[in-house]
């Protein structure tokens, strides 16, 4: 079945009139809101630019890499992620209540929002289409191993899987396991191994030399 994104593409490809209807509708709303003095088009441009260039998963990767490299920071992150992340001034405005959950040999964590699309924007940017799609939202809480298989991830059968459904304003981020063979690496080098999906729990951190 088509994801909502495929659906969007179908409209691009096969139903051009529907797409232009959406474009016209968005333009009409923007004009009305601007004329009524509610919004400022330059601010709209700046918000878009912020999400396209500044607020993305590299912020989260910096947090994870520091937790791998600095045991005191890792402890602080797991104790109170909101405060720990706020202490890293270069990360954009942190959410109200952030919880970091640690992957171990025994337990793998995975984040979902079955009711809408709650996601730690400040650390990971806007969620990818699959995260917001019906297949992920419906299956993550019932068949997480099947969902992981869709991502090419197979875990040992006896690894516990903990799925965190973001049903309130708490935001979750996964602290993935540090890959072997990275002893002595700088936080910058480590951050390159931290993929977005590894912080959602639908992937693992990259091994040295592995490409995303």
């Amino acid at each position, binding site marked *: 079945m088509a994801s909502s994104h495929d659906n969007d593409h179908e409209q691009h490809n096969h139903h051009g009139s529907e797409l232009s209807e959406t474009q016209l509708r968005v333009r009409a709303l923007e004009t009305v809101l601007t004329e009524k003095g509610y919004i400022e088009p330059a601010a709209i441009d700046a918000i878009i630019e912020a999400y396209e260039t500044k607020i993305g998963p590299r912020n989260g990767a910096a947090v994870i890499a520091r937790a791998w490299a600095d045991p005191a920071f890792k402890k602080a992150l797991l104790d109170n992620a909101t405060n720990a992340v706020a202490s890293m001034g270069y990360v954009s405005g942190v959410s109200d209540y952030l919880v970091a959950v640690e992957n171990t040999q025994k337990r793998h964590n995975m984040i979902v929002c079955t009711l809408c699309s709650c996601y730690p924007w400040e650390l990971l940017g806007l969620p990818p289409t699959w995260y917001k799609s019906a297949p992920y939202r419906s299956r993550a809480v019932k068949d997480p191993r099947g*969902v992981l298989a869709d991502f090419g991830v197979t875990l040992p059968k006896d690894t516990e899987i903990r799925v965190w459904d973001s049903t309130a304003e708490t935001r979750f981020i996964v602290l993935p396991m540090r890959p072997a063979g990275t002893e002595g690496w700088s936080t910058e080098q480590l951050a390159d191994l931290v993929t977005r999906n590894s912080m959602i729990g639908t992937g693992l951190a990259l091994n040295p030399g592995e490409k995303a």
Partner: protein
Amino acid sequence: MDGVHDMGGMDGFGKVEPEQNEPVFHAPWEGRVLAMVRSMGYAGAYSADHARFARERLPPTTYLTASYYQRWQLGMEMCLLERGYVTAEELTTGHALQPGKSLKRKLTSEVVSAGLARPSFHRQQQAPQRFKPGDRVRTKNIHPITHTRLPRYARDKLGVVEICHGCQVYPDSVAVDSGDNPQWLYTVVFTSQELWGPDADPTITVTIDAFETYLDPA
């Protein structure tokens, strides 16, 4: 409300299909919708839960066939119409036909960073905390026709409190304009067998964040 947005545990939607090198926005209008939703939220036109409840009230066929940002556009229009910020005639003609309502504040270029910071949802407690980590609880069997954050798959289920998150704004109340009505919030853990029956994979556990009003002692 028992809507199609409440997707946890439904079958038939198929495989998850990640897109390689996915752009932040697939078309420029998507970014404009996102930025307008943020701007009007910052301006105080609606809360996140008003916006969620509006999207939940889209006709089920629309919800399931529209793209994500199309749902956001439709939900924002619904919120702005219902709350008197625009009229249907204005949306049809694409121009303002009467002066705007006064705003709490405006998201201008000068305040973009502040405007994108997440607000606090914590509030002063109204009653003592009823549960603590380790307590057994049973979620209520409730089916409000308005906004709730207790998903269907986790109703009338036995779980264990894992974390107390303090007292927070209560979405069920905010979405129907009945005020913040702050409630204690807990992360509650369920076994997959409690949720999905005796044949479920015993290595899986699922948590939800549940407001105290959703829980009974067990």
